[in-house]
């Protein structure tokens, strides 16, 4: 059983790893102190960190390696490394493994074809949360192919999910919609479009379901919506066959289900206590996993911050308990007074935050340590965004919302 896991593929900064480490300390010291006295002997661990891509550099860099040492000193924490990505980068974890032989795993699980892959480990962990079998594994893709290696991770993840006999769902949001452009022809990289088509075909052959949904707002902005029937059905002449361009709400409908949804930087926090059964139907109200959206980027340099807030608004409107936490560079959205040029179509992020403040199912938080680290003060008008410190962050992540019966909390880093 893997109650909590973090799947991290993007660059893992000292700041990010520090707050993750502090949250784990909160979990053990405040919520499960008995585990500190009696180390759980479970081979699986209570917290599993699944590291791939540039997150692997954090095991080598002195500032982050030091924090990993502290995290690995906590009971029942293990790290599963993507062996192929370690080799690609020439990173060795042997030193760390000598100190923590049972906690650092750099050999990956064999698949059906006898090939070892990190994503077999990921699929196995993601699949465990769903009872009874068969299950579904989703992947949220925010970045474009080729510029970002996360698109390849998505392919490998969904392929491993199919091997684990799970139905698969691919959600293309922001630049992730480019993954579904037809006619991709890379010469030095795996073809992401063809890969997605192969996944769709494999799923059909195995009798598994496969959905690929692209956000219509993101697709329209990028020129994909070539025909709209006026009723939400959009037909594009420039996407691969399995891709469906749909209103964001249709994508959010999938997030209201209870399956595990992965992505480049996500986590799943277990909400149920051991011994509870999982006999609820997936569609039951109150069963939707709560969503925590972490806004970690500056507000205007990329679409990520606005995309994260929009995503959270859509989740809340669909009845999913949703938290937005402005953290790391995300706190720049709350500092100063933002002014947009006069244009009826546009609004700045502070206007959006102000407009949605107080919405049902939506809570907004500012992580004070991130503000302090940047010598920033929150705009006094952003008073609907509640200040939180480290302890409150731990509470938000590990305490389930009242009355909620979901198995886990989704944490998505934008």
């Amino acid at each position, binding site marked *: 059983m893997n109650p909590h896991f973090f799947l991290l593929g993007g660059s893992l900064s000292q700041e990010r790893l520090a707050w993750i480490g502090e949250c784990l300390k909160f979990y053990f010291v405040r919520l499960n102190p008995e585990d500190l006295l009696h180390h759980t002997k479970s081979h699986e661990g209570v917290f599993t960190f699944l590291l791939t891509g540039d997150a692997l550099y954090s095991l080598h860099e002195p500032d982050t390696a030091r924090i990993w040492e502290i995290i690995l000193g906590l009971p029942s924490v293990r790290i599963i490394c993507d062996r192929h990505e370690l080799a690609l980068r020439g990173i060795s974890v042997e030193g760390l493994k000598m100190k923590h032989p049972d906690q650092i795993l750099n050999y990956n699980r064999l698949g059906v074809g006898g090939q070892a892959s990190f994503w077999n480990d990921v699929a196995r962990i993601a699949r465990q949360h769903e009872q009874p079998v068969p299950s579904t594994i989703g992947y949220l893709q925010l970045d474009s192919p080729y510029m970002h290696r996360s698109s390849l991770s998505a392919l490998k993840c969904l392929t491993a999910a199919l091997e684990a006999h799970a139905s698969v769902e691919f959600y293309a949001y922001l630049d992730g919609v480019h993954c579904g452009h037809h006619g991709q022809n890379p010469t030095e990289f795996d073809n992401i479009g063809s890969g997605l088509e192969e996944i769709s075909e494999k799923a059909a052959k195995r009798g598994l379901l496969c959905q690929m949904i692209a956000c219509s707002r993101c697709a329209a902005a990028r020129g994909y919506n070539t025909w709209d029937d006026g009723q939400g059905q959009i037909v594009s002449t420039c996407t691969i066959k399995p891709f469906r361009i749909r209103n964001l709400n249709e994508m959010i409908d999938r997030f209201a289900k209870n399956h595990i949804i992965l992505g480049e930087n996500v986590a799943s926090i277990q909400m149920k206590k051991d011994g509870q059964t999982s006999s609820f139907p997936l569609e039951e109200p109150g069963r939707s996993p709560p969503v925590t959206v972490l806004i970690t980027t500056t507000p205007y340099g990329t679409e990520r911050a606005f995309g994260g807030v*929009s995503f959270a608004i859509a989740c809340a409107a669909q009845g999913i308990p949703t938290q937005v936490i402005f953290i790391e560079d995300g706190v720049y959205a709350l500092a100063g007074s933002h002014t947009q040029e006069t244009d009826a179509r546009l609004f700045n992020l502070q206007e959006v935050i102000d407009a949605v403040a107080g919405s049902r199912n939506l809570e907004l938080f500012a992580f004070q340590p991130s503000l302090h680290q940047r010598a920033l003060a929150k705009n006094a008008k952003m008073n609907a965004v509640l200040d939180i410190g480290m302890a409150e962050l731990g509470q938000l992540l590990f305490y389930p919302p009242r009355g909620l019966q979901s198995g886990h909390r989704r944490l998505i880093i934008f």
Partner: protein
Amino acid sequence: MTGKHANIPDFSDLTCTNLMIRLKMLLKKTPPGVPVACYVRRGQRDTIEVPFARSGYEVKVQKADAHRYRVSLTKKETEMDL
């Protein structure tokens, strides 16, 4: 965004999430009891109707033409929690 009526904006080109943001902005600036009206597409109507009605707004929908609807939202005097 050209309205069919001089004072009623046409939001039919907005995505559903942006429409929700836009309406919330307008509603925040509008005193309780005063309606906010706009033209929307059918898909947008579905997105607006349930969440706003469930949250204490009075929602009126009239068909304007084949694919457009005139939606009117009125903030009730009681506290909103949408």
